[in-house]
Structures are given as C-alpha cells and as structure tokens.
C-alpha cells in the first residue's frame, strides 16, 4: 500500500514537480555554506567594507542590504530556518491533529465532546489575530516560540478533518469485524483505522506546513519574531523597514517572497497529488 503510494507519487507529474522543488530547497538548506558566497552576517571582506544598499552586481548577485549584508547569501541561509520552522510545525500540528482526531473519532462519548468543544473554539477564533496576540505576549524571541505559537493555533482544522474521517472509517464493517474478533482498541486504531486515513494525514501535514511557512513569514515580517534571525520573513521585515519598495529595490523584497511562494507551491502540488492518488475518480483523467 505504502509502496504503491510512493510509486504513484513518482509517476504523478504534479507530485514529482513538488518533490523536485522541495528537494532543491532541502539541498539549499543543507549546503547553504557551500552555495552562499558570504556569511549572512558578513558585511566586509579582504577588500574592505561592502557597499550599503548596492544594486545587483557580479560581486553581490542580489545586491546588499542597508547594513551591507549580501542579500543572496541571506536568501540562501534563510532557507534553513524557514524550512525548519515549516516542517517542524507541520509535524507537530499533524501529530496533535492525528492524536486528537483518533481519540475523539474512535472513542466518542465524553472524550469526543471535550475535544470537539475545544476544537470548535479554535476554529471560530480568527487565527491570525490570535497568533499576533499570543506572539506579542511571549517575551522570548526566537524560533521556538514561533513554532509554539504556530502549532498552538494550527491544529484545529486538521483535527476536525481527521476526526470526521475516523468517524466514517470507524463505522466500516472491517472495524466491526475486528471488534468481533476480539482485537484490542489500540490495535484497531493503529492497524485498522490509521492505514485508511494515511493520505488524509499526509494532506494535513502538507497544508499545515504551508500555513506554517506563511505564518512564520508573517510573524517575522511584522516584527514579532526575532529580527536578528536570518529568515525570509526577517528579510522582508528589513526590506520593508528600509523602504525597499520606495527605492524600487526589487532584488531585496522579491526573492524572499518568491521563495516563500515556491516552497508553498511545492507542498500544494504534493497535496493535489495526494488528492488524485487517494481519489481514483480524479486519477483516471
């Protein structure tokens, strides 16, 4: 089953494109020191200080910032944090959503009532204001608080979707057969139900990762993150603070925006593919 999925994933054009884009980003993140010509916080070399706010040149592919940092190098290094925050948050939210969804959906009763109640509250509260409010109360500045805030606000949608799917799978006859056979509840959850919602879990992971990448950029952009960190979001923050738009310095604000979009697209493409793979009706066309 999982082998089949992988095979389909590679033969599906959209999925393949998504995987390729993501692999490139991972490659960039891992080998950032080898790709970037300078350290992201380096503002001079043997030839002396870098020019401030320089336009693209052969020495600085995407120019320099107001502090004289090489923008291209920052873009490359920024991949590390943006990708890390996205994937870690995606894993955490998916894990929470899966746990709560399985618990509520399979056991039902009071457990489900409580989970659904909290779930509904989180679904109703608009998430961006909530993120901003929470983030502004957290005094520690850094990556982990951001991951915490994004995970805390991001689990509700996935939980709702997974729970309802578990509810339908739970009513399928093979689950009843397992009960009649004397299978233990945990075995039923992990052996009978989980394999049938794997594609949904993957979809939840992809969508919450996209949301985290964008959420991280948003927080950093409005200055609620750690502004000294090197991420695409802080790059946008500094670009905005230094009126890059006004000076028409496209090399400063366009590349990070583009990268955020591309990373989001790669996950979205894989998500589409999951839809196609798990829904045979779409696959045929």
């Amino acid at each position: 089953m999982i082998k089949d999925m992988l095979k389909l994933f590679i033969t599906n054009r959209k999925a393949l494109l998504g995987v390729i884009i993501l692999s490139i980003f991972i490659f960039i993140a891992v080998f950032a020191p080898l790709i970037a010509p300078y350290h992201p916080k380096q503002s001079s070399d043997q030839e002396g200080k870098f020019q401030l706010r320089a336009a693209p040149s052969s020495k600085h592919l995407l120019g320099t910032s107001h502090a004289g940092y090489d923008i291209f190098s920052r873009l490359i290094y920024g991949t590390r944090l943006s990708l890390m925050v996205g994937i870690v948050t995606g894993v955490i939210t998916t894990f929470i959503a899966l746990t709560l969804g399985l618990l509520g959906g399979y056991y039902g009763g009071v457990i489900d009532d409580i989970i659904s109640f909290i779930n509904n509250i989180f679904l109703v509260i608009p998430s961006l204001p909530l993120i901003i409010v929470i983030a502004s109360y957290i005094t520690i500045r850094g990556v982990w608080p951001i991951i915490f805030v994004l995970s805390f606000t991001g689990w509700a949608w996935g939980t709702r979707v997974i729970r309802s799917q578990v509810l339908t799978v739970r009513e399928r006859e093979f689950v009843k057969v397992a009960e009649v056979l004397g299978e233990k509840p945990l075995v039923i959850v992990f052996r009978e139900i989980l394999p049938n919602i794997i594609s949904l879990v993957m979809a939840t992971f992809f969508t919450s990762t996209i949301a985290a990448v964008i959420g991280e950029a948003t927080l950093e952009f409005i200055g609620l993150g750690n502004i000294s960190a090197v991420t695409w979001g802080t790059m946008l923050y500094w670009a905005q603070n230094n009126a890059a738009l006004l000076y028409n310095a496209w090399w400063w604000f366009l590349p990070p925006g583009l990268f955020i979009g591309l990373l989001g697209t790669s996950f979205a493409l894989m998500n589409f593919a999951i839809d196609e793979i798990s829904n045979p009706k779409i696959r045929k066309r």
Partner: protein
Amino acid sequence: MHFPVKKFGRKEEYVHAMDDISFSLYQGEILAIVGESGSGKTTTANVVAKLHRPTSGEIYFNGQEIYGQEVRKNNLEYRKNVQMIFQDPFGALNPTHTIRGILERPFVIHGLAERSELEAKIKEVLVQVGLEPPEQFIDKFPHELSGGQLQRINIARAISVEPVLLLADEPTSMLDVSIRIIIMNMIKKFRDRDNISYLYITHNLAGARYIADRIGVMYAGMLMELGPADEIIQNAYHPYTQLLRSAAPQPEKDFKENKLTTQGEIPSLVNPPSGCRFHPRCPKAMPECSKKLPEMYQINEKHRVRCLLYRQ
C-alpha cells in the same frame, strides 16, 4: 430489548428495533431470521455479537449472560466462541492489508498459533474455504479478488478461531447469484463438520428454507413466528408470514396465480403501532388486535406464532 436513540434536544427516545425477542439456538443448528429491511433482524445479530448493547433483556450463551460481569471479564473467550460474517464481503476486509495480514489476526489475537506456524495455518483455512492453491491468494489485496472469493476469506477468518456460534448477516445477498448457493453449501459444510450453530439473517425465504433447520420471521422489531423451516413456509400461520410467502417469486407458477394479500410498508420503529404491530396491514385484523399485544402462542411442540387468531 430496546435501543436508545438520541434525537434533537437530547431527549432520549427509543427505537424499538428489537422488542421482546426470545428464542433459543441449539448446538449445530441453523436458525434463519427472515424479515424485510427495518424488521430488526440485523440488530438481533449485532446484539448477540456484542456490537450493540440492548436496553433490557438477557442473552445467555452457554448459561452465561453475555452482557454480564462474567463474560465481560472473559471477553476474549466470548469473542473466540462467537464470530460474525457480514453482508458486504469487500467492506468487511481492510483494503490496506493483504489476505495474509487479515487471516493471521485471529490466530495472533487468540494465541492459536506460533509465529512460525502462521503461514501453514493460513494456507490450511484457505484450502478449507476452497481457495486453492493458497499460494495464489495469500499475498493478494482484497481489491484483487472477486466478491465470492472475498466472502470465502471472511468465512475463513470466522472459522479459524473454531467458533461455537456463527452469526451470518445476509452473507450472500451482495454476491452474484451463481455463487450464492456455493457459499450456503460451505456454511452447511462447516455446520456438519464442526457442529457450529448459525444465526442466519436473510430476507430471502427460499434461501432460508434451503439452509435452515428452523426459521424465525421478524416484523417491525418483533418475532412473529418461529418453527421448523419447511413448516413455516408450507404451512404459515401468521398473516405476515403468509404475505411474505405470497410475495416471494415462484417460477413454477404463472404470475397471475398468486396475488398479494395486503399492501403497505413496515411502520416507523420510533412509534410502533399499538397492539399487534402488523394490524394496520393485516387482512385478518380484528378490533382487539390494535389494543392487545399478542403473545407467542404454541401451535405445536416446535411451532409458535404471535397472533390472536391462534389464542387457545
């Protein structure tokens, strides 16, 4: 037995899916429960399978109340003794597992085989249900097999724990007609060989007559008539059984020969009719039928019927 149903406003109402059903099932006997959809026949099987808890009433299995303390403590033992075959052969098999993955579970759960013996055991049950050679099936996924083959897998899984009682909920109704008899014969074969008792749920009167020793007829949650299979069909006492009988296709007769005795459909089970549940449709209804709920009256030693016509 009643079942609670939650309605809007959380006021509990009861769906009388099963009401005052009492019958016993003997070892090695096939008892067919016949009824239309909504008659409560599937609920009966689910209650015995411990998938639904009845609101009242008792079910004894080998002398022990199945929802009582004793059985709850030894749940696994009850599970080993009572197995179920479902209607939809495909739905009853997890599409993400291979046949091997599906058929090894009963042995693992009940500790009936060592790891090293599993493969041999699985092949053995595959052969027993006529899937030969077993090597050809053991590593297939459910979607690679036909409905008839899948139902054999379901039977194999159920018999592999050597149950005492098998609940069969319309096991052939979703299969191709040419396969149905084969599956029925297989069910009979295991009865003859292992002395398994069956509660065989069906809507097909002719099929029930073919397979069962006794037939119970259910209507709107109540058992209306119970007796030896052939007698129920050739010599039906209850007007509802007579109606079912006249509705069943009979190729040996010309169509015009048997006309339906009555019309209408099964009533809602949330508010069932007062008195005899069949009285609004009954061609022989008497005034008191709407007031008095008939008991099961004894016709002869083995034959009981719930109808005021046969009150002694």
